[in-house]
């Protein structure tokens, strides 16, 4: 089991390195980033100067080397050595910004390191992802199991029908409804505002502020997970070993919970891990509707401003989250299924 985990983690590290290389190459293949940064009415001299200042004049392999060095040991901005020396010589040392490892870059338009920007955006995004994950997994699996148990009965039909409706509703419709009607017009719920979670006394305001957006996001996933769970449970309950469990004389409850649900869990874990990972890169629509300054909002802003370092940082963080969740899913898989654990 330990060997399995070590092997998976090593493969994961290799994947992260390759991913960083690919992301970096892709973004630099789209031309000189300084032109986009400079804006519409930009003279050739201005572009040239900016290119030099931002270090885009160096060959791309050298830029990649600097980027990786920044990730490993950190780096100083502005990146142009001559410009930095000039600042020191003129007594503007405080204008030099040190970016600690793992340094993802520096946003010229925000005058902040990418790490600072991501750090600030991570709070709302992670909170949103975690709370909605808990809601959708709990209710999605619960309702899915109930639908499977009562297959063909009215409960199942209601569940199947309503999941279809909820799944078809766009997030911005549900979100706008919650915000405009539930919170603002009818005042049934306090206006959702993100409160950072810093200590145990923050839990109540944090959960109150996050609940509506998290529910908005969760409803969509919940609808899908009800259907997944229903299908997986029905499938596992038609296996031969379920007949064996019944033939042993187990009560139906135990047949379902011990023998049926366990095998339905395996595919659910895979799906849940990947869906959770994708949320860590930000839920763009939900964040926009509720005006949450999370990773999704940051991505939209960076995209509109042609803020390349922030975009690269976001993609790398999002992709790393997917890779890490994949490793966790694999380890959970081995924990659940002995055939994986003992496979050589």
């Amino acid at each position: 089991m330990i060997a399995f985990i070590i092997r998976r983690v090593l493969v994961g590290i290799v994947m992260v390195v390759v991913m960083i290389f690919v992301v970096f190459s892709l973004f630099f293949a789209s031309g000189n980033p300084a032109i986009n940064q400079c804006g519409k009415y930009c003279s050739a001299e201005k572009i040239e100067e900016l290119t030099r200042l931002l270090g885009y004049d160096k060959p791309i392999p050298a830029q990649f080397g600097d980027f990786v060095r920044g990730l490993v040991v950190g780096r100083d901005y502005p990146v142009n050595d001559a410009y930095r020396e000039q600042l020191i010589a003129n007594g503007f040392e405080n204008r030099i910004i040190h970016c600690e490892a793992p340094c993802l870059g520096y946003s010229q338009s925000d005058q902040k390191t990418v790490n600072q920007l991501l750090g600030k955006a991570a709070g709302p995004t992670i909170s949103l992802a975690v709370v909605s994950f808990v809601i959708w997994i709990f209710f999605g699996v619960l309702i899915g199991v109930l639908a499977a148990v009562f297959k063909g009965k009215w409960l199942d039909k209601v569940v199947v029908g309503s999941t279809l409706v909820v799944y078809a509703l766009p997030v911005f419709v549900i979100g706008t409804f919650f915000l405009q009607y539930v919170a603002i017009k009818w005042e049934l719920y306090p206006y959702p505002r993100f409160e950072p979670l810093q200590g145990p006394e923050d839990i109540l305001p944090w959960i109150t502020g996050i609940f509506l957006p998290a529910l908005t996001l969760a409803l969509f996933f919940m609808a899908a997970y009800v259907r997944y769970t229903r299908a997986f449970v029905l499938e596992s309950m038609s296996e031969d070993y379920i007949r064996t469990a019944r033939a042993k004389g187990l009560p139906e409850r135990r047949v379902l919970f011990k023998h049926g649900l366990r095998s339905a869990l395996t595919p659910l874990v895979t799906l849940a891990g990947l869906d959770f990972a994708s949320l860590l890169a930000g839920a763009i629509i939900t964040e926009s509707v509720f005006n949450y300054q999370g990773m999704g909002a940051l991505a939209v802003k960076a995209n509109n401003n042609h803020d390349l370092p922030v975009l690269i940082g976001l993609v790398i963080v999002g992709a790393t989250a997917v890779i890490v969740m994949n490793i966790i899913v694999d380890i959970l898989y081995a924990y659940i299924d002995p055939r994986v654990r003992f496979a050589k």
Partner: protein
Amino acid sequence: MTRPFLSVENLVVHFPTPDGIVRATDGLSYTLEPGKTLGIVGESGSGKSVSSSAILGLHRNTNAQVSGKIWLDGVDLLALSDKEMQQRRGKDVAMIFQDPLSALHPYYTVGDQVGEAYRIHNDVTKKQARARAIEMLDRVGIPDPHRRVDAYPHQFSGGMRQRAMIAMALINDPELLIADEPTTALDVTVQAQILDLLQDLQKEFNTALIMITHDLGVIAEIADEVLVMYAGRAVEYGSTKQLLTEPAMPYTLGLIQSVPDLSSDVNEPLKPIPGNPPSLLNPPPGCPFEPRCAYKHHVPDGLPQRELPELREIAPGHFRRCHLTETDLSKLTPMPVGVDE
């Protein structure tokens, strides 16, 4: 008159489907005494497994319509509540299945699954159940049971898995064991071992055994009585000796003749029964075997298509469902049947 230990009376299992009712078992009756073995033979879809699953009440909570009587030791199992049936399942009646790999849960250890059958019917601790599981694994011939008890099904060979299934089924010392083609998925050499094991255990526990199979070799080895099923009904029923030496029903004869004879010429082609069993969905009236029967020209024309023959006793303890008046088929000449389908 005392009722036999197991008495199945006019058992009917119907499955309603959107296309009509599937008559999987239609009026099946037989009896069985402790320590004896009944072989149920028939092609796939003849109702062997369906009728036997009904004894365990495995059709409860499905859309199957089950009627008739199943007397076990003086109690009608079909009249029991779901809860009462559940408490008897695995304790008084146990079952082993065809493919032991899919019949065992891949995520739990063999010991856990074998012990669970004991724990559910007896007020014992996990530790006692485990000890009992080890004892049973040892009894069914699994080497090194103390270690193997913690192995998972996929770490066992096919024969070992079936031994574990047998251990699970016999852990509560059931009065009746139903074996649903227990050797079909196994290698030939392992098949013989499993049959020997079943016979040994049956003798030891004085269990009544229902052996469902389509292998007449298994029947010849293990069964005291044989029930031949066709299209959900019994077509011939009697002692193993009667059926194998004096088959009185063309279908039974066909089954026997389709078994390759090791002493005969190897180049001699096998003799299959032509055609396919009929659909159990809205079956036509008449003898279900008529389209495939090589002896139908000995019966007045139109009778087999019109009327289902009764199950009649032709010798003490020997029943058949056939329109033929002659019981000794060797006195009749068969005709080749052209089954056009």
